[in-house]
C-alpha cells in the first residue's frame, strides 16, 4: 500500500507524539505517525512513570542542568544539545499539566520538587493523556500496529520508509518530505536477569528493539557514544526502579552484613551500581535498600507509587506479605541497555536534531549526545525536531522509485526460504548469550576485553548470516525476525564502539562504510555553539 505524507514520524511514543503536536505550530503540512503498537499505551510510558526526572527548580538555570548531566557522563555529552533540551524542560512539564497530568503542588501553587531536578506526579496515565491530545488533532493521522523496518534513502536523502502491518499481510511504502525517527532505545541485546519464563521482565520495554538505530546504521547515518551503555540498579526479580526507595524514603544501600556501602563508592547513578557490583564480587552480597523501619504510612505510599509505574513490585509486596517496613528490598544490576535518554547513545545530530541523512531527524532515546533526557527531555527534543522539520518542508523531494519497493516486497516474501532447524527465538537467545559472555553482560559483571570483543564480533556476524536463512510463517513471526536482525545490526556497531576504549577528549562516532563499521572521533561541542554537519 502506498501512502504519501509530508512529515512522517516513526514511533508514536513520548518524543513522537510531542513532535506531532508541536509540528502544527509551525506548519500546516500533513503529519503521519507510524506506530508498531497503539499510541495509547506504547513504549516507555506504557506502565506509567514515577516522576518528571528532568525539571529545573526555581533558583536553578538550564546551565546547571547542562553541568550536572555532563559531569555525570564524565564529560562525554554535547553542550549544545543539553542546553537546548534543558531550556525546554519546564515548558514541557507545564504543557503536560495543561493536558491533564497530575503534578504535586504546594500551598502556593508551586510544583513540589524532589531535589532540584524532579517533580512529583501521578504518572500512571501519562501516555493516554498524550495520545488523547494527538487524536484530538485533525491533521495528524495515526497508523497503529504498523512496524517500520527500513528507510527509503537516495543520495543520502530520506524519501520515506517501508513498513509492515503487524496483523495482516500488508506492506506499506510511505513517502514523506521529512522523517523523524522516535523509536526509543534498545533492549534485549544482552541476556536478561531472568532468561526463563520471565525473560521479558526487563526495565526497558522489550518491544523497543532498536529499530531506529538499525535503520540508521544501514542507511549509513553517523551514530555516537554507543559504548555508553545504561545499566540500571533495580529491585531484584521485578526490575522495578530503586530511586523511589533511595530518594523517596531515604533508604540506604547495605550489604549482607548490614553495612552501608553507598558512602564508600558514591551515590551517582553509576556509582550506586558500581558499588553493588563490587560488594557482590567481594563476597559481601546480596545487597539491599534498607527500608526496614519505615512507617506504615510511608509503606502504603510506596505501594501506591509502584502501582503507578511498576505494578509488579507492589504485587510482590502484597502477595508475600513482606512489605518494605519489615523486609529490606534486594537490589541487582540489570543487563545493559542502549538508550540516549539515560546515557548518550544514538544518532549523531546537529543542534536542531537533524541526523547526517538529509531530511531525517531524531529525538528522544534514539538520539545521541544528550543524556538524562527522561520524559520531559524527550518532549523537548520532539519540539526542537518538529520545528526544524517544518522549516525543512520547503525543499523539493525527488520521486520514489516503485521498482525498489517491489524488490523489498519480494525480499520479505522470500525471507529465508530454506528449511532450517532453528527459530528466531533460538538465535535471539544465542545472541544474548554471546553479548553476555563476550561483550560485558551481567555474567561477567559487565567486563570485557579486546580478545572477548573480537569473539563477540565473529559470533554476531555468524548469527547475522543464520538469521537470513529463517523464513517467517506469519506477520507476527516476520516482525520478530526483523527485530532480531535489528538487534544484531546494533550489536555489531556496539561491539566496535566498545573496542575503541575510553575517550575523554572526543566523541566516539561510527558509520557503515563498504560493509564495515568505521570509527570517527569528533571533538567535543560546547553549549553556545551551533553544531552543523
Amino acid at each position, binding site marked *: 500500500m502506498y501512502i504519501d505524507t509530508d512529515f512522517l514520524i516513526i514511533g508514536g511514543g513520548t518524543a513522537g507524539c510531542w513532535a506531532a503536536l508541536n509540528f502544527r505550530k509551525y506548519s500546516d503540512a500533513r503529519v503521519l505517525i507510524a506506530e508498531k503498537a497503539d499510541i495509547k499505551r506504547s513504549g516507555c510510558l506504557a506502565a506509567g512513570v514515577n516522576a518528571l526526572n528532568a525539571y529545573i527548580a526555581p533558583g536553578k538555570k538550564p546551565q546547571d542542568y547542562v553541568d550536572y548531566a555532563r559531569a555525570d557522563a564524565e564529560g562525554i555529552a554535547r553542550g549544545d544539545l543539553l542546553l537546548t533540551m534543558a531550556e525546554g524542560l519546564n515548558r514541557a512539564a507545564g504543557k503536560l499539566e495543561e493536558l491533564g497530568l*497530575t503534578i504535586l503542588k504546594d500551598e502556593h501553587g508551586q510544583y513540589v520538587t524532589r531535589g532540584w531536578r524532579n517533580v512529583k506526579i501521578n504518572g500512571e496515565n501519562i501516555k493516554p493523556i498524550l495520545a488523547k491530545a494527538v487524536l484530538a488533532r485533525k491533521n495528524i493521522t495515526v497508523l497503529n500496529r504498523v512496524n517500520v523496518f527500513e528507510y527509503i534513502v537516495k543520495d543520502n536523502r530520506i524519501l520515506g520508509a517501508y513498513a509492515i502491518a503487524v496483523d495482516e499481510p500488508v506492506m506499506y511504502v510511505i513517502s514523506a518530505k521529512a522523517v523523524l525517527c522516535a523509536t526509543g532505545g534498545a533492549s534485549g541485546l544482552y541476556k536478561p536477569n531472568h532468561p*526463563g519464563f520471565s525473560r521479558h*521482565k526487563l526495565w526497558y*520495554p522489550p518491544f523497543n528493539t532498536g529499530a531506529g538505530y538499525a535503520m540508521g546504521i544501514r542507511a549509513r547515518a553517523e551514530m555516537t557514544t554507543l559504548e555508553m551503555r545504561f545499566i540500571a540498579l533495580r529491585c531484584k526479580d*521485578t526490575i522495578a526502579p530503586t530511586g523511589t526507595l533511595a530518594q523517596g*524514603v531515604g533508604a540506604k544501600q547495605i550489604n549482607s552484613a548490614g553495612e552501608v556501602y553507598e558512602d564508600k563508592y558514591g551515590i551517582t547513578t553509576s556509582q550506586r551500581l558500581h558499588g553493588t557490583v563490587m560488594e557482590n564480587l567481594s563476597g559481601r552480597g546480596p545487597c539491599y535498600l534498607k527500608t526496614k523501619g519505615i512507617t506504615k504510612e510511608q509503606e502504603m505510599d510506596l505501594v*501506591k507509587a509502584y*502501582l503507578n509505574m511498576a505494578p509488579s513490585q507492589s504485587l510482590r509486596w*502484597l502477595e508475600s506479605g513482606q512489605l518494605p517496613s519489615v523486609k529490606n528490598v534486594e537490589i541487582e544490576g540489570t543487563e545493559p541497555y542502549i538508550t540516549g535518554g539515560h546515557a548518550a547513545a544514538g544518532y549523531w545530530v546537529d543542534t536542531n536534531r537533524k541526523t547526517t541523512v538529509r531530511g531525517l531527524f531524531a529525538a528522544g532515546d534514539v538520539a545521541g549526545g544528550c543524556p538524562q533526557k527522561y520524559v520531559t527531555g524527550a518532549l523537548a527534543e520532539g519540539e526542537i525536531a518538529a520545528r526544524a522539520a517544518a522549516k525543512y518542508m520547503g525543499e523539493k523531494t525527488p520521486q520514489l522509485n516503485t521498482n525498489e519497493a517491489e524488490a523489498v516486497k519480494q525480499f520479505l516474501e522470500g525471507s529465508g526460504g530454506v528449511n532450517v532447524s532453528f527459530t528466531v527465538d533460538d538465535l535471539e537467545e544465542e545472541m544474548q548469550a554471546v553479548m553476555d559472555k563476550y561483550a560485558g553482560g551481567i555474567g561477567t559483571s559487565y567486563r570485557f576485553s579486546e580478545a572477548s570483543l573480537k569473539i563477540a564480533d565473529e559470533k554476531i556476524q555468524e548469527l547475522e548470516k543464520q538469521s537470513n536463512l529463517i523464513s517467517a510463517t506469519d506477520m507476527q513471526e516476520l516482525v520478530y525476525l526483523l527485530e532480531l536482525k535489528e538487534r544484531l545490526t546494533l550489536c555489531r556497531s556496539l561491539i566496535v564502539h566498545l573496542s575503541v576504549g575510553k575517550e575523554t577528549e572526543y566523541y566516539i562516532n561510527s558509520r557503515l562504510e563498504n560493509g564495515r563499521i568505521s570509527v570517527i572521533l569528533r571533538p567535543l561541542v560546547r553549549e553556545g555553539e551551533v553544531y552543523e554537519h
Partner: protein
Amino acid sequence: MSIEIRHDLCTACGRCSLICPGSLIKFKEKKAVIPHPERCWGCASCIKECPSEAIALFLGRDIGGLGGRMTVRREGSLLHWTVTMPDSSSQTVTINSRDANKY
C-alpha cells in the same frame, strides 16, 4: 511475569488486544488469548483496559511468584487494585489518579 485471561469473563471486546504495547494478545474462538505468555513485559496496560476484569497479572515462579493474581477496576478517576491469593483471600488498594505520588 505474565497475564492470565479468564474466558468465563471475557466478552471479546478486543480492547486488550489493541492496547498491548507488544501486540501479544490475539483472538481464538472469539476469546482473548496470549499465545506467548513469556513475552509479556508486565506493564499492566491490558488489565487496566479490560472492562470485565477478565485479565490478571501474576509473577512467574522464576521470579519468586506465589500465585497471587492482580486485577484492577476503574471507577471514574479511581483505580481499585486487587491481589487475590490461591486461598481466595484478597486485598485491595485504591488510588485516585488526581493524587500525585508522595515519593
